[in-house]
């Protein structure tokens, strides 16, 4: 009896000690001195919800890659705390081979030293990349660290049945937009006799910097910017006249016209999407990835997609997209490069756009691909034009997230508290941005 118990106890200790050792065992390598093996399976991480349609789309795409090139690859979908999990793997010096993530993460990842520099000569298809996409793959040092494979730009989703009922037309500039928004709010467009509709859906929460992300559409088309400069010389510019004008106009939607949905300042995208789907709001600025969902829940006949109404300066909209990042320390660098090259090839771009549920590729980055050939849905053409002619990426600096977060805090504050002075808050924001740019070592002296 006693011997047995003792044995069990000892066994427990040993097992756990061993388990501890295995997980703590240092992984080999790091850097480019890793022994190469072309047979090694490429570990592909993608930032999307596990089990979702877009995970399925990515898997389909990566399987096609294996078929076309012979390199093996395996997809892991991660959504929550993606960057944290990546940092943990970095700490273990055992990164995935490929990461498919937002364009705006490039600076952060490059400064952490977890990306491998890409020689564009090795990526043959890169000569057909759109100039915008090519530029979005470069870090502050002018070198290429990522290959953007999919693009998206924002456009205005608007309830066509509401427009029809009120005898209005889709807005083409800010004045008209305010008019339509006011009519949607006050004239009972859904005809239920209650004042329960609003003009514009706004995800105004500070979570992941949503408020700033959404507002950038308005800021840029007014000719303003969060920070201005290039290379490693930047200055904050949120207190410029253009930025103040854009911010004042945007916050007046809430504070004067009252056309933004109630609760906007505590909403991130999921509840905001719901307000558009459920007929609480009549306009929403967002990307093409929402179409499958709105078609299903709201119905494609109830809304239309039009270009973003023109601002005081132009019709710039937020452009974003996915980038193929080749991670440092891979044991199959040839496979990595082949992956990036194949992903932007015309065949892959066309293949990734097929389907109806979700797409591996939103808009093509390869200029040889004509979107009309693949999709006969005219709404996609709207997004493609918006991207090509008015797409505006967030600037590539070592870390864009703090800038987005800080400006989101300010936009959120201005929407939530109508007694705040716009200029004063934006000047304060500029002060914070100055400190941040200094920390990142890119403040223009």
């Amino acid at each position: 009896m006693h011997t047995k118990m003792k044995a069990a106890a000892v066994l427990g200790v040993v097992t756990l000690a061993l388990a501890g050792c295995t997980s703590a065992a240092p992984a080999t390598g790091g850097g480019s001195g890793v022994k190469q093996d072309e047979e090694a399976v490429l570990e592909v991480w993608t930032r999307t919800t596990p089990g979702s349609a877009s995970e399925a789309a990515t898997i389909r795409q990566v399987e096609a890659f294996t078929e076309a090139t012979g390199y093996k690859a395996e997809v892991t979908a991660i959504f929550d705390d993606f960057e944290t999990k990546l940092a943990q793997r970095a700490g273990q010096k055992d990164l995935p081979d490929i990461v498919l993530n937002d364009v705006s993460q490039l600076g952060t990842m490059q400064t952490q030293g977890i990306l491998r520099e890409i020689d564009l000569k090795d990526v043959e298809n890169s000569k057909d990349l759109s100039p915008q996409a090519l530029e979005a793959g470069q870090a502050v040092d002018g070198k290429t660290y990522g290959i953007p494979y999919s693009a998206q730009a924002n456009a205005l989703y608007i309830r066509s049945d509401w427009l029809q009922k009120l005898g209005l037309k889709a807005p083409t500039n800010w004045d008209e937009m305010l008019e339509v928004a006011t009519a949607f709010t006050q004239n009972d467009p859904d005809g239920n006799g209650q004042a329960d509709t609003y003009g514009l859906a706004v995800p105004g929460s500070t979570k992941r910097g949503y408020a700033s992300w959404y507002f950038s559409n308005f800021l840029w088309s007014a000719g303003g910017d969060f920070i201005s400069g290039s290379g490693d010389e930047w200055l904050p510019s949120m207190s410029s006249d253009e930025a103040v004008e854009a911010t004042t106009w945007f916050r007046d939607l809430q504070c004067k016209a009252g056309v933004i949905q109630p609760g906007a300042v505590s909403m991130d995208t999921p509840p905001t999407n719901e307000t558009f789907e459920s007929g609480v709001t009549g306009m929403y600025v967002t990307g093409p990835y929402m179409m499958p969902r709105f078609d299903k829940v709201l119905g494609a006949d109830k809304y239309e997609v039009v270009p973003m109404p023109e601002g005081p300066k132009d019709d710039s909209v937020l452009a974003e997209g996915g980038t193929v990042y080749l991670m440092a320390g891979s044991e199959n660098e040839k496979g990595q490069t082949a992956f990036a090259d194949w992903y932007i090839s015309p065949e892959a771009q066309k293949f990734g756009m097929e389907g109806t549920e979700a797409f591996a590729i939103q808009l093509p980055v390869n200029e040889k691909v004509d979107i009309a050939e693949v999709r006969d849905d005219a709404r996609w053409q709207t997004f493609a034009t918006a991207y090509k002619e008015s797409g505006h990426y967030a600037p590539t600096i070592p870390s864009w997230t703090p800038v987005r977060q800080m400006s989101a805090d300010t936009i959120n504050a201005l929407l939530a508290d109508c007694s705040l002075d716009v200029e004063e808050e934006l000047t304060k924001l500029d002060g914070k941005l100055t400190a941040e740019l200094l920390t990142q070592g890119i403040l223009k002296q």
Partner: protein
Amino acid sequence: MTIHAADAATAADAPKAAAGTIASPPPARRRRRHRTQGQWWIPWAFLMPALLLFLVFRYIPMVQAIQMSVENVRPYLGNEFVGAQNYQVILSDPAFRDATINTVILAVGQTVGCLLLGFLLALLLEGQTRKLSFIRSAAFLPVVVPMAVVAELWRIMYYPSADGFLNNIIGVVGLGPSEYINSPDSAMWSVMLMGIWRGGPYDMMIILAGLAGIDRGLYEAATVDGANRWQRIVHVTLPGLRPVFTILFILAAIRGFRVFTEVFLMTNGGPNGATEVVMTLLYKLGLEQGKLGVGSAGAVLLFLATLVLTLVVQLITRRKKDA
């Protein structure tokens, strides 16, 4: 009952055994005693799995956090030692100061609110009948519902237009509509209210257990002495519950300091930073902006504050006990 019987049996056997072997006690028994007393490591061996888990998942990360708090953390390039710079950064950050004030307000408000609500509920629901136990379970429900669900429910109830659930209710008595979590003026107490609603029943359960431990005779004696209901509560119930309140106070204070989930889910610190607490700020700094060193420094400060608070409460209660 069975224990007594067993004791009696051994007691009956003992003289017989003793009579037979007075000179030397049974060798088997001596060996056993020797073994359990002598092998000091056996209890440790049994504790080891749990200790190892604690070590890997709690203590090592804690030490790492302290280490990271004096470093510029760059996961792949290697960390640089920067001394007290991270502490300097976070302590001079007005956002950290505001978050600390908000945390204290929220912690105090929720602690007091939960204790009051819990005490009130406990007084109302004390007793033995079966109906009461059903009602008690019903009152306890908020505690077992996951925080994510609670936060989402309250967000819906707090819908800020006149047709929102709570605005409908307060509209009946001519109030509102309130903006609740969407206005910097009311966001803090809205989050606090939800916290009290959720935490109160938990305190109720523990207070109920404490109430059961108070001698009924004291109430009777007080009644005989002419004390009314209020006096009985003040002079009998409250002193009797002192140890329970101490525990609840410590638990609530710790819970209050590290409040995160409800704030993160409902307001994420907004609007205009009105509900920014230390934990949401640390999350933003460390995990969203990638400033892990600065975030760790903040976490260490939070840990120290909690430690000091717990020690102070311990000291105060110990002194009271001694007096």
